[in-house]
């Protein structure tokens, strides 16, 4: 698939501070792409460059094949940007706010009526359309923000920390809306600090640190990389002390470790000597009852820490 966003060797300086230092990555069409990095890594700068609010000083950024430095209007017609801060006309009602942006994008009165109705339904805000925005909860306001982003029916959504400050329920509901939007074929580029949700939601991810790309690619690739010896996570009936020695005695098992606070163990194997099928068979042969079994993947948190802490964790 053609990339929707192509970023090549982009460098951006704010006076003496190098906010971006040659970052390079791509976002595929129709994907839900996570964008992660510590505070000050350059996430918001990258987002502002993509959405044409900043001009790149060096390197190239293309969105839908258009250069952000030159084809600003063509890009803006096809993108929707939700900034990380609450920026709303709080004195307007929800309907007025969306209708205003619809008109600002050049839609006629009839078109606006339909579009605003659609985005209100999608974000489940039609019951609150006549409420003043200032009276809405933070979660509701975030939905209105998302509805505003959708008013011009963008192909690419750029969301900067959309879930920050939301309670768990509002966060889950927001994630559901994003899944629905992906199903509708939108490309979503989401910057967030909530890694567990990104891991669950995104197809691909880019991690940046101090203005440099640390990883960019499929989510699975990130979670599985750097595991030379496959590790399996399993839950076995009985007390770990009773079966750890048994597991360690299986051919090809390199080590077994218990997981603190969980009734599970992690088993590392030498893939030249055994594999998952053989391991399972050997465990069953030892008369142990397996409750669950699966390939152990790293958490996005671990990958993030590994990539951004510059080798502190080895």
């Amino acid at each position, binding site marked *: 698939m053609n990339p929707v966003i192509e970023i090549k060797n982009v460098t951006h300086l704010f006076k003496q501070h190098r906010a971006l230092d040659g970052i390079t990555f791509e976002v595929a069409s129709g994907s839900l792409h996570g964008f992660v990095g510590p505070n000050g890594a350059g996430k918001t700068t990258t987002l502002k460059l993509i959405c044409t609010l900043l001009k790149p000083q060096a390197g190239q950024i293309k969105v839908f094949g258009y250069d952000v430095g030159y084809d600003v*209007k063509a890009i803006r017609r096809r993108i929707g940007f939700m900034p990380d801060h609450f920026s709303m006309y709080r*004195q307007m009602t929800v309907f007025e706010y969306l209708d205003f942006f619809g008109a600002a994008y050049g839609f006629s009165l009839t078109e606006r009526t339909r579009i605003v109705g659609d985005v209100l339904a999608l974000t489940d805000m039609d019951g609150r359309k006549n409420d003043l925005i200032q009276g809405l909860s933070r979660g509701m306001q975030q939905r209105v923000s998302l509805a505003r982003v959708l008013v011009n029916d963008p192909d690419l959504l750029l969301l900067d920390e959309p879930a920050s400050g939301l309670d768990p329920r509002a966060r889950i509901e927001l994630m559901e809306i994003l899944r629905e939007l992906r199903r509708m074929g939108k490309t979503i580029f989401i910057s967030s600090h909530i890694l567990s949700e990104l891991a669950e939601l995104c197809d691909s991810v880019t991690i940046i640190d101090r203005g440099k790309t640390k990883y960019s690619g499929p989510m699975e690739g990130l979670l599985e990389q750097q595991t030379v010896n496959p590790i399996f996570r399993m839950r076995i009936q009985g007390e770990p002390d009773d079966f750890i020695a048994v597991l360690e005695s299986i051919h090809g098992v390199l080590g077994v470790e218990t997981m603190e606070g969980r009734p599970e163990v992690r088993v590392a194997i030498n893939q030249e000597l055994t594999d998952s099928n053989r391991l399972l068979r050997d465990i069953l042969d030892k008369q142990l009852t397996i409750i669950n079994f699966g390939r152990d993947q790293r958490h996005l948190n671990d990958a993030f820490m590994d990539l951004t802490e510059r080798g502190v964790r080895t």
Partner: protein
Amino acid sequence: MINKTFALVRRALQADTRDFRPHLFRCALAFTVLFTLATIQMNSFSRTAPGKDLFTWVLYINYWFITAAGATFFATAITEEKEERTLGLMKMAGVGGAAILAGKWIPRLIGALLLILIQIPFTVLAITLGGVMWSQIGAAYIALLAHLFLVGNIGLLASVLRPTMSSASGLCVLILFLFHLLPMFARSALQAMITPTGVTTQLLLSMIYLCDTADQMCAMWQFPEIMGTGFNSLLLSFQVISNLIAGGILLLLSWLFFDICTRNDIEPGEATWLNKSRHLVSFGNARRSWDAALIWKDFHYLVGGLFVLLIKCIAYAVAVFVMVMFVEDWNWRHIDFDDVGAVCFGLGLFMLIVKLAVIVTRVYREEMTQNTWSLLSMLPTSLAAIAYAKLLGGLIGLLPVLGCLLVSFLMVPDDWMDVIEDILTEADAFLIVSYFTLQAILGLHLGAYLSVIARWAVWPLSKFLATFTIVMWNVMVISCLNGMGGRSEEGIFFILCCISGVVILVLHYILSQRLVAMSSE
């Protein structure tokens, strides 16, 4: 309480010392006084008492500076904390209402006093130049300080009562406007009630006496007496004592209302009472945006929409009626078209400049405070088109003022045509009108620029600073021209027009660059 107050005062003074802008402003004021001195010296051949002239100038500059500071500098004392939502934090840290009030008010008072103090060397020069005595200078400064205390406390009370800097500033302007003009209008109206009917009741006399007393509280009306030849009154006049007492009462009221008025935090861009009430009476029928969405938004949410325009039209009609009646000694039979035309013209022109200043300083600032400028910048159109559309939406708010000028034109068309003919046929009239028009445009640009670069705390000051700079500049220019004895005025005005045009273009460019930068902040 004392420690907490001093902590706040120290923080404010440290910030003031580190920031170069207050120092720059003090230098600018000193330069203004110096320039005034120079122009008076240039004109000294035609003056009998140049020292007195210099000091009178300085006195009136100070008076209006202090009055404007009340509506800006002092009216932001508590509102800046309200808008930044830091009052709650202060209260949680155990800082009480009195400590906050004192801690926010005292640094402002010190700042204003510093501005007055830097002029003292020049006032000594005034004595050397002749025409003014130490006793007059002493009495004038005491009158000014009492005025400062009163105005500072009006600003403080407004900042306690109102939720935002804009509304506090507006309330303060209203109070100061009434303070200066209401007694004069009321006395005139009351005296008119006595004369034609011949009815003189004790109540009327008491009310007239009250108006006289209120007039005596105003320092500005005392200056002619202070600067008069043979001044030999007490330093602690009625004006000084009454200003101090009134200021003290206002300070007490600020303290009493502090807790009640600072219970709830406010958010930027809160709906006004007008908006809320309009929303309630609309019964859920949302207003639909025009196709020109940006114009619609600013017309409805900055200007207030048709309803506010209608209210303003009625208010202007009432104001014109009162002013015409005042001019004609409250005898409606004497009113003619000329009176109405003249009053409409004066009021229209004054309000045109005031409203323009308000619009240009709010139109972009509101987007900045609500963090919405980046959203508008994302629209698929140029930033210039967005900026001009917004301005146009705000300018619709000038319709009542333009209506006022139109009435003036309809009442006295011949006068208007004469003036227009003069402007079009006489070079000096054309140049002078062009120059002052350019000055007004320059002031508007300066106000707009200051409104988008100023820290949140000094935004209302931007209106004042822009006006003050332009007015002072023009006072200097006129003084210089007087000093030159009218030689080659046309040439000078032509050069000044060119300079003003260039400065406007530069400011326009800088403002546009600032708006571009704001979109990515």
